[in-house]
C-alpha cells in the first residue's frame, strides 16, 4: 500500500505542476459539455470563434479548458467541481445537465449556458431579463412567434392553423402549449390533430383538410418521421404545410424559420466576451437565438397554392431545389 500511495502522490504532484502561476496570466474560459454531438460541437466552435473575433485568442491571451463528460453525468459533476476549484473567469456550460451540475457547484463564479431550451424550468435563472445571480446564457427555444409571423406573411388569408403532433412527446406538448398562447395574437385559431404513432399521421392530416387553411408541424419526432403523409394531404387539398424543422423544407414543406447551432454559439460567445470585459452575469439578460435563417421550397409552395413574394424570396438563405 505505501508504495502505491507514494506513486499516487508523485502523479498528483506531476499533474499539479502545469498549474503554477505564469507571469502574465491570460484570461481563462472553461467549457463543459455533456456529450459529443454535431449540434453541440457546432455551438462550441461558434463560442470559440466569437471569442477569437473579440480579440481573445486561445494560446495567447486566452486559456481554454474544454472537457466533455462523454455522456456520463457523474463525470459532468466532477468536471464542474474541477472548474470551480480552478476558478476560471467564465465557465461555459453546453446543455442543461452540464449547466445544472456547474450551477449546483458554485454560486459565485460566472456561468454562461448554451443550448438550454428552458432555463426557467431548469432552475438555472429566476428571471430571464434580469437573472441576478451568477448565471446567464442563450436559450435555444424554438422561435414560435417568428414562425407564426412567417406563416402570416405567406398565407395572409389563413385563419385556422392546423397543428399535428404526438401528445406523448413532452417537447411537442410544451411547444404546442406556447403555440396556442401566441397564435390568437397573430390572428390564428389553432386546430389540433393528435398522431400518437407515425402510422396515425396520415389520418391526422386528412382530419385537418377542410378545417384549416394552413398546417404547422412542430419539432415532433413522430410527425417529422412521417412527414411525407402530411405533404401528400397538403398537395391534394392545397393546404400549405409549414415546419419548425428546417431540414423538412427539403422534403417538401413550404417554408421554415430556424437557426444553426453555430450561430447560437456565436451569440453565447458575445455574452462570454461581455463578462470577460467586466460585466456581471446577473446584469446580462438571457437571450433567445437572434439569427434566424429562412428556408423556402418554391416548388412545394406552388403545389400547395402559395405564391412567395420576391422580398421574402430574397431573405431566404436556402431555396430547396425543385
Amino acid at each position, binding site marked *: 500500500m505505501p508504495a502505491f500511495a507514494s506513486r499516487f502522490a508523485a502523479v498528483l504532484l506531476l499533474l499539479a505542476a502545469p498549474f503554477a502561476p505564469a507571469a502574465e496570466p491570460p484570461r481563462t474560459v472553461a467549457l463543459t459539455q455533456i456529450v459529443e454531438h454535431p449540434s453541440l460541437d457546432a455551438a462550441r466552435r461558434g463560442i470559440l470563434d466569437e471569442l477569437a473575433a473579440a480579440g481573445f485568442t486561445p494560446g495567447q491571451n486566452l486559456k481554454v479548458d474544454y472537457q466533455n463528460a462523454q455522456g456520463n453525468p457523474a463525470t459532468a459533476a466532477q468536471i464542474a*467541481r474541477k472548474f470551480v476549484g480552478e476558478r476560471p473567469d467564465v465557465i461555459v456550460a453546453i446543455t442543461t445537465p452540464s449547466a445544472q451540475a456547474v450551477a449546483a457547484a458554485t454560486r459565485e463564479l460566472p456561468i454562461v449556458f448554451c443550448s438550454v431550451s428552458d432555463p426557467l424550468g431548469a432552475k438555472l435563472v429566476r428571471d430571464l431579463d434580469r437573472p441576478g445571480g451568477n448565471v446567464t446564457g442563450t436559450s435555444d427555444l424554438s422561435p414560435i412567434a417568428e414562425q407564426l409571423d412567417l406563416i402570416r406573411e405567406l398565407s395572409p388569408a389563413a385563419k385556422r392553423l392546423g397543428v399535428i403532433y404526438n401528445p406523448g412527446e413532452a417537447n411537442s406538448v410544451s411547444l404546442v402549449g406556447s403555440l396556442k398562447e401566441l397564435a390568437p395574437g397573430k390572428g390564428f385559431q389553432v386546430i389540433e390533430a393528435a398522431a400518437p404513432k407515425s402510422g396515425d399521421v396520415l389520418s391526422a392530416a386528412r382530419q385537418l383538410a377542410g378545417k384549416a387553411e394552413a398546417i404547422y408541424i412542430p419539432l415532433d419526432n413522430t410527425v417529422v418521421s412521417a412527414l411525407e403523409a402530411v405533404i401528400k394531404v397538403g398537395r391534394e387539398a392545397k393546404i400549405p404545410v409549414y415546419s419548425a424543422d428546417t431540414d423538412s423544407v427539403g422534403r417538401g414543406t413550404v417554408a421554415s424559420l430556424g437557426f444553426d447551432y453555430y450561430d447560437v454559439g456565436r451569440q453565447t460567445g458575445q455574452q462570454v466576451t461581455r463578462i470577460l470585459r467586466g460585466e456581471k452575469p446577473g446584469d446580462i439578460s438571457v437571450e433567445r437565438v437572434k439569427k434566424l435563417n429562412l428556408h423556402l421550397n418554391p416548388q412545394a409552395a406552388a403545389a400547395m397554392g402559395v405564391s412567395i413574394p420576391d422580398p421574402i424570396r430574397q431573405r431566404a438563405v436556402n431555396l430547396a431545389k425543385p
Partner: protein
Amino acid sequence: MSGIALLGAIEIGLVFGLVALGVYLSFRVLQFPDLTVDGSFPLGAAVAATLIVHRVDPWLATAAAALAGALAGLATAWLNLHLRILNLLASILTMIALYSINLRIMGRPNVALLGEETVLSALQDRAIPAYVLTPLAFAVAVFAIKWLLDRFLASELGLALRATGANPRMARAQGIRTEQAILSGMALSNALVALAGALFAQSQGSADVTMGVGVIVVGLAAVIGGEALLNPRTVIWATTACILGSLLYRLIVALALNADFLGLQAQDLNLITAALVAVALVLPRLRSGPAR
C-alpha cells in the same frame, strides 16, 4: 488538482460507493449479473426529485426512492424466477422498461432541484463550506449503511442469501428458500442503487432521464478495483473494498480530467480512465511479485 475537485471526487465516489455495494450484492453475493442498476439509479433520482418539487419532505422522498429501487429489483428477480427468463436478459428488460417509467414519473426528461429544499440543504451557508461538509456527511451515511449491510449479511437471512449465491442446490438441500433469498437480495441491491441516485440528484441539482448511462460499468469497476486493492477474504473487508474502489475510480477520473497537458484532449477521457484503472488493477500485483 484543487481541493474542491478532490473533495468533489470523494463526494461522488462515496455516492457511487452505494452503487458498488448494490452491485457487490447482486454480482458477487448472489452471483446474479444484474444490469437493472442502469435503470434503478435514475429511478431513484426521478422519484426523489419529483416528490421534492411537489413539496414532499426530502427525507421521505429519499426513502421513497429507495423503495422504488427495491421494486425494480423485485421485478427483475420475478422475471427471472417466475417467467424463467435468463437473469441477464431479465435485468436488461427491467432496465429498458425503467427508461419509459422514469419519463412517466418525471413527466419530462429533466427535473431541476437547484434551490429546492433537499436533504443537503442543512449543509448550505454554514461556517464550513458545503463542498467540505457534503462529502463528510456522505462518508458518515455511506459507512453507516455499509455497517448495516455487514450486519445483515451476518444474520440468518443474510447467510441464506450468501449460501444461495455460493451453491443454490446445496442451499435448497439445507432447507433455504432460495427464491425468497434472491428476491430479497435483488430488492436490497437495487434499493441501495436507487438511494445513490436520489442522493446524486440532490447533490447535483437535477434528475435527468439519461443519468443512468454507464452506472453498471462504474459499479463493477469499483467492485473489481476494490478487490484488486484489498484482496478481501471476509464480507466486512469486501464491502470496505467496494467503497474504496469507488473512491479510487473517481480519483482516477479526476486525474484523467487533468491529463490535457500531455497533449490529450477531451475526447480521450474514457480511454485515459480505462488505462489508469488497468494500471491501478495491476499495481498491487507488481508489489507482491510476479509469482502470484
